[in-house]
């Protein structure tokens, strides 16, 4: 990825992004859909957009996914 692409990726905002509150409110549903092979991103495109842009929420997603996968 070029410098310009990296910078553009960092600065580009997605209008579908629902923000932290809405994303975290349905995180358990999103994770269960992911674990069971459902299309979480298709059902919640605003959450998917947010998780791509927000490091802390993405970390929570990974944490919950790991917790559920580990039982």
């Amino acid at each position, binding site marked *: 990825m070029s410098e*310009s692409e990296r*910078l553009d990726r*960092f600065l580009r905002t*997605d209008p579908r992004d629902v*923000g932290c*509150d809405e994303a975290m409110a349905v995180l358990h549903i999103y994770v*269960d859909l992911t674990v069971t092979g459902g299309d979480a991103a298709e059902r919640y495109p605003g959450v998917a957009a947010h998780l791509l842009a927000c490091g802390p929420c993405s970390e929570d997603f990974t944490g919950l996914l790991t917790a559920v996968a580990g039982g």
Partner: protein
Amino acid sequence: MMAAGMGSVAVVECAEPAERELDAESADWLRRLSACDGVRRQESEGELHARLLRIALAEVSRRSGSTPVTGPELTDVAHQAADDAMLAILAKLAGFRGESRFMTWAYRFVILEVSSKLGRHYWRNAPVTLDAEQWDQLPDRLGIDPEQHAESAAVLAEVRRVVDDELTVHQRRVFVAIVVDGIPLDALAARLGLQRNAIYKVIFDARRKIRRALVAKGHLDDPGLEQR
């Protein structure tokens, strides 16, 4: 700290849960945690707390490389997260609607507690102070090298100009803390007494403002998706 088998720490409705479309395991958890039999309920609470603590300990371990919190303090964060998650779960048990499996719903509380508490504990041994303004770190943060390309130097100068001239005082402070100084978003939220979403929104708006300026100067292509 809440011990397994300890008496109920929150007022739990003693009633049969309403009929819902739940998977067997979720229904069983809900039934046991709502049982009128106090001994049975306390055993279930102890079992749930043990699970929450195990998840919290695993989560702080997973995040140990990205936080200045270490050793016994990290373990303490896990115990606090499990205790507070347990309280929240019992308080909100009646609100569980079965949109996910019960345990996924419950683990969400403990994962979010870990995030929040690591943010607060960050400042006890913070590697950088608030308002440090380490502008020399900006190229690395943005992944660009001004020594390799003259264009990159111009981009950095324009970013700095927008941050200094076009962001509000609050936007500038948040942007510098998060992007320039690399302070974790949850840590800044804890320090400023704001919610994570409030900080994210400020960064979101700042990114959009900076991008528009870079597009206007010809450093980046058309705004595309960012219009809102």
